[in-house]
């Protein structure tokens, strides 16, 4: 199978996504998924959030936050299936689903953020 990327560039994306995920996701997930949902902290208003997303720098941040961690997931999940469940024979299907998912998420993030209202 002709792969669109080589292993080294995929690993670089995995690694970059790992850094982004490690630094940024815990606090953001804690706030939106737990603290605001349980009412521990006052959730930011719709107006505050839309005002934030209108800033180009915030949109760039959100794009990176969505895209790179998906490539991190794709790489790691692929090897989890290979090694953890020992399903090497489905190699190409897994490869396509993982990176296809990451590309789809990136396109969706780009679509949502590119022309913000």
């Amino acid at each position, binding site marked *: 199978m002709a792969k669109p990327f080589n292993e080294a560039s995929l690993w670089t994306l995995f690694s970059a996504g790992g850094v982004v995920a*490690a630094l940024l996701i815990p606090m953001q997930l804690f*706030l939106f998924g737990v603290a605001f*949902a349980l009412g521990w902290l006052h959730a930011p208003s719709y107006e505050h959030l839309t005002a934030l997303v209108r800033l180009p720098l915030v949109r760039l941040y959100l794009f990176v936050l969505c895209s790179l961690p998906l490539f991190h997931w794709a790489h790691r999940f692929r090897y989890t299936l290979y090694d953890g469940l020992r399903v090497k024979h489905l190699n190409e299907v897994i490869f396509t689903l993982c990176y296809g998912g990451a590309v789809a*998420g990136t396109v969706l993030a780009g679509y949502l953020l590119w022309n913000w209202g």
Partner: protein
Amino acid sequence: MKQATINEAPVYTEFHPRWYRPHVSVYWWLGEWHYLKFILREISSVFVAWFVILTLAQLWTLRSGPESYARFQHWLQNPVVIAVNVISLFFVVFHSITWFNLAPKAMAVRVRGKRLPDILLSAPNYAMWAVLSVAIAWILLR
């Protein structure tokens, strides 16, 4: 000399050689803490992907208007969703800690011939994590 080896008749063995391939169970990682930790670390990527899906849904509903976003917020308050997010939080923190602790293993920095202790290499990662987390909270809670 070379010519002679090429012209030699190939030697056939009577039996096909059998490779030594021990059978490895699908549950090989359950036996030992180190293996389990490895698999938990790998599984953390699923929760990273879950966070991205949540964020994309949040952006989608933010774009669709205040009512749509209010419905999304209400959905986030569902106990099942909160439970999933608490589990996800555990895994993404596990990812952060294992990722930051990897730095000294990936690069061995030597100063005057001596290897820097691991803590000096992972500490800046933790500091960066703290600064960015405070910044995110500050921007959102302002």
